[in-house]
């Protein structure tokens, strides 16, 4: 006696769209799982698995959960950047500290991105990889006085206020949240960055030993003995 409401079709259509996007996504996703190195840290393992396992794209930004691949997480999202900036060379080989470029991570909510002039500070030296096409791009941006339009990898929604300095100064290693960027030829999103992930650490507490392990270091006895560092988890700490 009652006509089926047309609203019934909406969830059905949505489910179909969702399914279609997952199928196309997995079809497009490169399946090349990097071979496991001989001695792998826990984080390296997580990175490797995350990079291979998570269905790639199409990623979109959602106001509700940050970057997502329609399955509720942006883990593994790895956008192509305008310049192929190799973190491993700069961090592992040249031993640059993270805060050399991300200069305000310990004093501001915003970690900071290096200005083009920071890059050029070293790269004006013509003997550094004279044939590199990416360095040519960098020099082009510098010559034109244009900023480099980096594609954002890590983002929490705009109604979340994440103060980097509170975390960095509490001793949380960068790698705890960002993964071993020093081993990522192209940076990908390492953690889900959703609220459950944040709160679990705030409630359970941050373990200095785990943090060091995730950064690829072997924790010393002091770190192993240190208690977990808890934080408050009131909504208005981050949401205002």
């Amino acid at each position: 006696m009652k006509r089926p409401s047309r609203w019934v079709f909406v969830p059905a259509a949505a489910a179909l769209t969702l399914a279609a996007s997952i199928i196309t996504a997995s079809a497009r996703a490169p399946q090349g799982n990097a071979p496991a190195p001989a001695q792998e840290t826990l984080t390296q393992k997580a990175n490797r698995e995350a990079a291979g396992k998570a269905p790639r794209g199409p990623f979109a930004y959602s106001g509700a959960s940050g970057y997502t691949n329609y399955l509720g997480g942006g883990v593994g999202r790895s956008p192509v950047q305008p310049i192929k900036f190799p973190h491993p060379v700069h961090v592992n080989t040249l031993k640059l500290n993270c805060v050399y470029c991300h200069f305000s991570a310990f004093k501001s909510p915003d970690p900071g991105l290096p200005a083009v002039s920071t890059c050029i500070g070293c790269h004006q030296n013509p003997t550094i990889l004279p044939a590199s096409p990416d360095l040519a791009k960098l020099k082009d941006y510098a010559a034109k006085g244009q900023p480099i339009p980096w594609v954002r990898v890590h983002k929490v929604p705009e109604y979340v206020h994440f103060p980097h300095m509170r975390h960095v100064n509490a001793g949380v290693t960068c790698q705890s949240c960002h993964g071993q960027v020093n081993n990522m030829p192209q940076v990908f999103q390492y953690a889900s960055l959703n609220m459950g992930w944040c709160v679990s650490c705030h409630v359970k507490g941050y373990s200095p030993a785990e943090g060091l392990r995730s950064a690829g270091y072997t924790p010393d006895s002091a770190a192993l003995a240190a208690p977990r560092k808890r934080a408050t988890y009131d909504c208005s700490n981050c949401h205002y």
Partner: protein
Amino acid sequence: MSTETKDPAIADVIAEPVRRRDFLKVLGVGGAAVTAVGCYSDQVEKLIPYVASPDETVPGVSTYYASTCRECAAGCGIIVETRDGRAIKVEGNPAHPVNRGALCARGQASLQGLYNPDRFATPMKRQGDTLVATTWDDAIATLSAKLADAKQSGAAKDAVFINQHEQGSFPAFLDQWLAGFGMPAHLAYDAEAPISTVAANRQAFGVSWPGYDLGAAKIIVSFAADFLDGWGLPVPQQLAFADARARIEGAPRLVYVGPRRSLTGLNADTWIPARPGTVQQLAEAIAAAVGGRGAGDLKGAAERSGVSAEAVEALVAELKAAKPSLLLAGGAGPNATALASTINDINKALGNVGQTIKPAEASQAFEGIATHAALRDAAERMAAGRVPVAFVRGADPVHSMPGGAKFAEAFAKVPFKVSFSSYPDDTTQLCDLVLPDNHSLESWGDAEPVKGTLSLQQPAMDPVFSTRATADVLIALAKADPQMAGRYPADYRGVIAARVGGNAGLVAALPTAVTRGSALPAPAPKSAAPKGGGAAGQGDYFLYVYQSPVLGDGRGANKPWLQELPDPVTKIAWQTVVELHPETARKLSIAQGDHVTVTTSTGSLTAPAYLYIGIRPDTVAVAAGRGHAAYGRYARGCGSNAMALLGVAEDMRSGQMVLAGVRASIARATGESRLVTTEGSARQHDRGIAQAVTLEQFRTGEGVEHEHTFPGQASTEFLPGLRAPVANDAQGDLGDPKSAQKGQYDPDHWSGVAKRRWAMVVDLARCTGCSACVTACYAENNIPTVGAPWQGPQLWPNVTGHGANVVRGREMAWIRLERYFEIDREPKDVEFNAEFDTRVIPMMCQQCGNAPCEPVCPVYATYHSPDGLNVQVYNRCVGTRYCSNGCPYKVRYFNWFGYGEPNRAQYAFPEPLNWQLNPDVTVRGKGVMEKCTFCVQRIREAENRARLENREVQPDEFTVACAQACPSRALTFGDAADEQWAVARMVEDKRAYHVFEELNTYTAVVYLRKVNHPAAAPANVAAAEAR
């Protein structure tokens, strides 16, 4: 309606007590799957770094620049907060001698002048009927050729340059430049300036504006000197007055003499409603009575003024007894200067000079100002075709000159008209060439508010548009002239640097922007022979035009914050109204909102009637400031221009335009409009919202109204000191001391969050109702303005246009100023009576410890935080509005439309207004409830800063935006649980009360009762006199 349900699934759930979170699960069956998909968007966000990193900035951390406010002539010091190169907030500079850290609504709204979406983006040139964009090279070449021509032909000597009146070196710099091209000195125009008072002061004291020490006076008598509305130097006057009134014992009584109770009048303890045109005689009689010059008997003068002779006699007796006193004369009647001179005589006779009037501490704010007669004279020369070229900068005489001066017609006859205005205002629309000026927050300048103290103005950011500082344009033009080129430095920064000993001196002075030094001396004021005729005309009523306390002479009308800010007296926003006394309205069968036509011999104006009990029945008042023909999307077509009613009439002694006392007739016109008002009722209905005591009651503690008795046990458990971090019944299980799950709510929790109880004290003895806090809150918290015509779909045919959303009760101000009249009947039924008390009270979220809004939220979007905040989590909110239903204070505001969403018609921040948005505060979307959060972002910022420096937050280390701005210092914010904070001491004040405390809401906002100072009984005065 039945609560039964036939659906077994739902019935099962309802059989159990429904918990808050389960409630939506019941409602949400079937709907949830759909909504999630709709949230996605395919945007790819870019991270744009600097090309070269500026040395002093840290991304995400504000940089502050000290500068000088240019929104009026007073010259207050400001601190401009910038984030990543954009100015986001303007606050008062605590190191500045004029305003000591406070700032009025107009000063705060300067940001919306800077980011106004209707600013000229490039220079403009006339082509036929329209102005078209051109390049700076072309504009400067065009003007340069014209100047050279005019100089050579001798036409330059008849040129007219109208500049906004301002302090500092620019007026002298401009006159030197004009002289170089053979042009006469400029006219420094300010429609709002109290020119009559300035003229009388020069005559009496030899200075234009002596220091008025309101705090030293035992009684202040204002003759229509609206020193809390914008007359004179608004912020320092308000600071001094509030400080004086906060003393309570020995605080000055305020008596207001004038036909209409302005905000100053409403703050007065006694109102003597003298008939327009008779105040001068009344003042002379008072002068004679207190032993000064002047003649006339008090009784006769009082009778002619239509006021009670006893009141005037009591005033005279009080003036004789209470020394020192301070009498101020303002107003813009036909005899304003004569009145001001008489008042100065009284001040001299009473020995006030040197006590409350200090010529040695004179302000320079009104040095060099041209009389309004000089402007009218220039208009006459233009009309006669004798002006070959005219310039205008920062002033809009077409809008702000009286209609009888026919400025627009006269101006149109000038062959070549140049504007340096940033905005397409009514005057600039007529110009042939526009060279848009930088905003004051983008340019260099100086002011010398007090002799010997230089207040510097520096750019806080790069120009938003392709504009150039006029001073720099003038230098560029001078460089093209071989005779002048050598006289100028490269740019105007060099001129400013020369005032403080060169570049090194400038750099050293900029951190506070206040230094010893002097600006170039102000040029001599320009004047012309005034034309009288102020009281002329036909009609049964006196017209009283006044400059709006919010919009000024109209320069604020293009800033949506100011349009949306209800007038402190009438509570009307976005609208021009005709103010009538209810008695008059009854006589003419006019109801509130009925259209009324006011006609003078010059023109007429039709607007809705507003029934105001604070105006004489024989007077009709209209505020100036609205009714622009241009001036951008927010000003154009909003309201009517009261100046159209005024003919050419000037005070014969000072040349000030006459705004008050003109005869007018009023008649009911067809049609009616709903008033764009935020006011529900002007009456308290015995609710005890804004409470007051008389001085006597304050002393004895007897007869205090609204001694509430509490239902339940609140009176025994609740302490005004707010020591309980969270009321027990607010948090249910968590409030139970025996609960194992108290978590962060446990005062002994390792984090110590629950040890704090953020609270606020509002001292109603200080609050004047100026509403600066409201604008400060808009600026800090990204509050959208909702009154523009396009912001509400036209659902109600009779409620469209400006302010339609406000009419529907959809205003968004998180803090509002409520204004109540203490009378025993509805205002519309009131007979004229000068004796009524007015209460003003800032009302914001009371952060209840036992909040009615919290338990009704089905999604925990609002809850109580351990540190005492009533938190609103925007991303949890689903917009049920139950909380708003539950709130007895009506301080929760709902986003009916997508005011924060750029792709919607109702977007409140059209580019580049959105540059101002505070990055620390979420911009709320459609369907979300929002409210005051005690500036939680500032609390978190202070906590973060303290942690960064490895310390605790220090007592009174920071404050919230409204308290920071308050020019009365009426608001105090802090941690009430820590004795070291000022607020913890203030909550113990014996005047303290909570609004609606009988509701057991355990509010965190404590109000201190207003203290009234009624006239002493005549016997007491006589006794005091005898001593």
